[in-house]
């Protein structure tokens, strides 16, 4: 039997005005388990807390109920008070007789009656409370950032700056991501390379950062503070520590006809290549699908010309195992495939390009050295049509487009249009839009400048058909404001393709047990209040893997994620929430119902030996909850068909006792 103390607070006149506190403390005195009951003007004051502490010691209390304001207000206060007097803090329950009683009712009698019932319910619950001790787990002071784009770079730099070691895992041979492919950045028109490459160099030079390029995460085990990760370092057939990045091999390689993915296939690279001049790490990589030496053993030119002797045709994939305290997903985005949009003739004409291809065409380091030309014949285009929302906001069929707004297209199209008019004033530029969405600092001003100063023709309407005719592209479009159908003979058509999460995100989310939405974007723990954390503890989100984002937003989210990681890694030990689920192994059938509803992947199954009455042992599969991962929602407790799952602090018996007390 518990020894319970009841403390009724007046809260000045806030409670005492509509509740007869004396009557409440008298009425609760005779409840089962109650050995002490009192009331005081302000329980949360120093004097009030002293009353509680003395009562705990004097009456050897094993539990206490405070009838006061909402637990959201002072539960933590009274728990600390109890702990200071040597009572387990989870033996404290609050009866909310202010917000949910005295403040909603005006009649003294009604208020008092309700306060007594609420007090009884709390007492009934405390009678079944058990002392809880929060678990502790150590923290590995190392972070893993998956993805080496601007999001991953910023997150890694910020974490490393705080003094913690960070590893970046990037699938491509170099870090830099999509931003490295861009020409200029809106709304200030800085050159993307000028602001990105110094950061890439910082990453390379930072002692706390290791880069695993041309690598991928293959296995993640463990939980917050203690992740065990396997990273596969794919064979690049070049010794990373020996290669000087001189680039001689890439000039001599005889295999010249490999589509260059960095320029989106608009020109060719060699079988051994460095993606771009400022690549980090600046190390050559051999493409095993194109290299003659690797395919049929006939060549070996690169090994001959390499003065450093870095080429190693026998290199194997390497598995690296490392422990991490926190993992940041920064897998980024890709433009969607244009194959299904045959109305825009993307596959019929080389002169219909996506915006990212346009970006490469205008980039000084791109396939045309920055000269805006038609990819088909190299001529200068005089009429350019930009089409917005290609595949974005497309709810009609899922395999074609995306239902969401890709967010960045309005701004980069305005940028492309403006830069084109600035460099080539003889070019006519048309932009077809549904809505122009520019909600950012200096964004709308930027778009208006494109229209007002640079004379870009913005037309409210959509392009319905693009048909190659001779060397022209016949664009059929609607102008909704003029209520006309337009026919424009264009030289170049640029499609603002929707963006989608990188394909690697889905398998990664499965490994991390991080949840995803239907579009394969990572879900945040709370859409407003915890936007950079995954609901899975210890997993953080950075950049476009969480939703479409422009560079300023990506960088701010990257830094925010870093701050959260640093906050976690600073701790020596993690104190868990003891109100977590636990399963009664004797009742558990190992049916997996609980595992399926757990949003955090906190439940695993173990084979456990049980002693039978006849002294034999039997092995059974039973659920086991990891208290460091469980957040205590209780979904599993209801899903469990045998009633083996229960929640500490909110046990089924406790809640039923409350129901009974209320319904008496």
């Amino acid at each position, binding site marked *: 039997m518990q020894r319970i103390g009841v403390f009724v607070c007046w809260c000045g006149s806030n409670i005492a005005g509509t509740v007869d506190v004396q009557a409440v403390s008298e009425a609760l005195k005779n409840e089962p388990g109650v050995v002490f009951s009192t009331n005081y003007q302000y329980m949360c004051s120093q004097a009030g807390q002293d009353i509680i502490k003395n009562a705990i010691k004097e009456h050897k209390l094993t539990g206490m109920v405070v009838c006061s304001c909402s637990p959201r207000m002072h539960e933590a206060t009274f728990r600390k008070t109890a702990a200071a007097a040597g009572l387990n803090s989870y033996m404290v329950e609050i009866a909310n007789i202010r917000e949910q009683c005295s403040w909603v009712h005006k009649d003294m009698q009604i208020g008092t009656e309700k306060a007594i019932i609420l007090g009884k319910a709390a007492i009934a619950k405390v009678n079944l409370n058990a002392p809880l001790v929060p678990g502790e787990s150590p923290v590995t002071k190392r972070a893993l950032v998956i993805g080496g784009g601007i999001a991953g770079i910023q997150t890694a730099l910020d974490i490393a700056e705080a003094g913690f070691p960070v590893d970046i895992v990037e699938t491509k041979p170099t870090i830099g991501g999509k931003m490295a492919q861009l020409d200029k950045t809106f709304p200030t028109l800085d050159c993307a390379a000028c602001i990105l490459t110094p950061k890439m160099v910082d990453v390379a030079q930072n002692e706390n950062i290791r880069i695993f390029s041309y690598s991928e995460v293959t296995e993640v085990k463990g939980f917050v503070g203690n992740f065990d990760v396997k990273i596969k370092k794919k064979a690049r057939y070049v010794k990373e520590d020996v290669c000087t990045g001189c680039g001689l091999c890439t000039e001599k390689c005889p295999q010249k006809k490999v589509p260059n993915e960095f320029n989106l296939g608009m020109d060719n690279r060699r079988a051994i290549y460095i993606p771009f001049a400022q690549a980090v790490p600046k190390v050559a990589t051999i493409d095993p699908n194109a290299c003659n030496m690797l395919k049929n053993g006939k060549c070996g030119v690169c090994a001959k010309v390499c003065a450093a002797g870095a080429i190693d045709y026998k290199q194997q994939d390497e598995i690296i195992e490392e422990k991490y305290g926190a993992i940041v997903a920064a897998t980024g985005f890709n433009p969607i495939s244009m194959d299904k949009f045959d*109305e825009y003739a993307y596959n019929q004409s080389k002169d219909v390009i996506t915006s990212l291809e346009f970006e490469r065409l205008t980039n000084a380091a791109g396939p045309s050295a920055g000269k805006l030309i038609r990819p088909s014949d190299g001529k200068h285009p005089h009429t350019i049509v930009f089409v917005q*929302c290609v595949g974005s*906001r*497309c*709810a*009609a*069929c899922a395999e074609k*487009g995306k239902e969401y707004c890709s967010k960045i297209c309005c701004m980069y199209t305005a940028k492309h249009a403006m830069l084109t008019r600035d460099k080539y004033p003889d070019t006519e530029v048309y932009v077809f839009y*549904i809505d122009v969405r520019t909600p950012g600092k200096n964004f709308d001003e930027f778009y208006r400048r494109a229209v007002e100063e640079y004379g870009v023709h913005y037309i*409210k*309407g*959509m*392009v*319905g*058909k693009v048909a190659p005719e001779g060397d022209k592209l016949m664009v*059929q*479009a*609607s*102008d*909704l404001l003029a*209520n006309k*159908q337009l026919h424009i003979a264009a030289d170049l058509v640029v499609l603002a393709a929707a963006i989608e999460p990188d394909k690697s995100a889905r398998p990664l989310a499965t490994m991390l047990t991080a949840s995803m939405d239907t579009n394969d974007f990572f879900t945040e723990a709370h859409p407003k209040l915890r936007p950079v954390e995954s609901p899975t503890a210890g997993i953080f989100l950075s950049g476009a893997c969480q939703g479409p984002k422009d560079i300023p937003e990506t960088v701010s989210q990257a830094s925010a994620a870093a701050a959260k990681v640093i906050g976690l890694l600073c701790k020596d030990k993690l104190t868990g929430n003891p109100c977590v689920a636990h399963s009664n192994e004797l009742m558990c059938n190992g049916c997996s119902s609980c595992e399926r509803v757990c949003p955090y992947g906190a439940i695993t199954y173990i084979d456990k030996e049980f002693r039978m009455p006849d002294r034999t042992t039997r092995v059974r599969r039973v659920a086991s909850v990891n208290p460091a991962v469980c957040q205590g929602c209780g979904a599993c407790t209801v899903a469990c068909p045998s009633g083996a799952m229960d929640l500490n602090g909110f046990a089924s018996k406790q809640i039923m006792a409350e129901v009974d007390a209320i319904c008496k």
Partner: protein
Amino acid sequence: MNKETENLRKEIVRISGVNPVKCMRCGKCSATCPAYDEMEYHPHQFVYMVESGDIEPLLNSKSLYQCLTCFACVDRCPRGVEPAKLVEAVRLAAVRKQGANHLKADDIPALLDEDLPQQAIVSAFRKYSK
């Protein structure tokens, strides 16, 4: 919107199975329409006018019979609104009003174009001779 229009609107929505509220006003239907220049009211206007209950002008418009029912707009609409089905439903609503169908099957031969594909002629007869 008065009761009569509201009922008419509901009837058209019911016949067509099209929810005009889904339209996000991008105009791709009109951009893709091959009969655009022939029509007084264009596909996007059909959607908007049915949505806002401005149906009377549509019932009296020749545009009803100029839609080729080629379904290009249905195929291209990013929101799945299916304007051609809506045009068809408005046309049916006009046909169901006795005497409102101002084009008769006998009038069609005079309107025929030599270059008109056979399929279009058959579809036109099907369409006008209900």
